[in-house]
């Protein structure tokens, strides 16, 4: 299994990721077109952890094509919008390998396999303004 921290994440980006949990998870549909989902994952050790139903469309999308792009943003009401782009690969991991908090309120459903955990290992992590033209 691939280990987190595949890319260097600067201190200011780390701080943003640790203090913001509003995330848009972008995946690919069956026809290859993009789609997205607002989510509230956990960030730990250079990776994002998503807790979702196994049968959810987003889970099916990631099982079919693991390439994802996440946008971690300030709160909806924030006057000054800021975002970190977190692009990488999603992998299904055993629920007990996820950081504390990922399974909050749904531990039983994780144990039965109804809900599952995806970990996203990034290959690009940067403030959006820095990679927008890249």
């Amino acid at each position, binding site marked *: 299994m691939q280990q987190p921290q595949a890319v260097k994440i600067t201190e200011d980006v780390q701080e943003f990721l640790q203090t913001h949990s*509003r995330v*848009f998870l*972008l*995946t*690919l*549909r069956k026809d*290859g*077109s*993009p*789609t*997205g*989902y*607002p989510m*509230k994952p956990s960030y730990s050790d250079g990776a994002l952890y998503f807790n979702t139903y196994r049968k959810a469309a987003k889970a099916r999308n990631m099982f079919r094509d693991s*390439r*994802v*792009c*996440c*946008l971690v*943003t300030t709160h*909806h009401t924030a006057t000054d*919008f800021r*975002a970190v*782009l977190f*692009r990488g690969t999603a992998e299904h991991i055993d629920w007990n390998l996820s950081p504390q908090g990922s399974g909050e*309120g749904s531990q039983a459903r994780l144990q039965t396999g109804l809900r599952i955990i995806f970990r996203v290992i990034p290959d690009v992590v940067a403030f*959006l*303004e820095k*990679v*927008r*033209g*890249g």
Partner: protein
Amino acid sequence: MPREIISMSPDEIRAFVKGEKRLILATLAEDGAPWSDAAVFLLEGDRVFFRIPRSSRSYRNIRRDNRVCCIIERGPPPYYEIMGVMAHGQAQEVRDGGQALQIAARLAAQRDPVASDAGDGAVFSIPLLEDVVSFDFSKIQRRH
């Protein structure tokens, strides 16, 4: 929870989207992987118009493959007030036409969410309701 229970009607979608100003844009990178950006937008005649800089990767992505998803979301918290719309479609660039150019001018007057000096912008539109997913958590009946 079945999606149809918390989805919005076309009128509810229009009302929600009209109250928002910023969207998250999903495009396809050169290798076909998803790529993300943020943009100002407005709704006019059941089409979502959004503006992105011509210097951006998103602009180049759309010119190569115009399949996009526009995500407009409010929340959280509180959890039971979360609302969102994901509109999918093929983005068409606004190039001419009186009304379309007026819309482009209105968008140009708004500050880009990502960069204060975003430079020359292009305006694209997609249909709001043709391929849309929506959710309104206030419709959830069984609350924990």
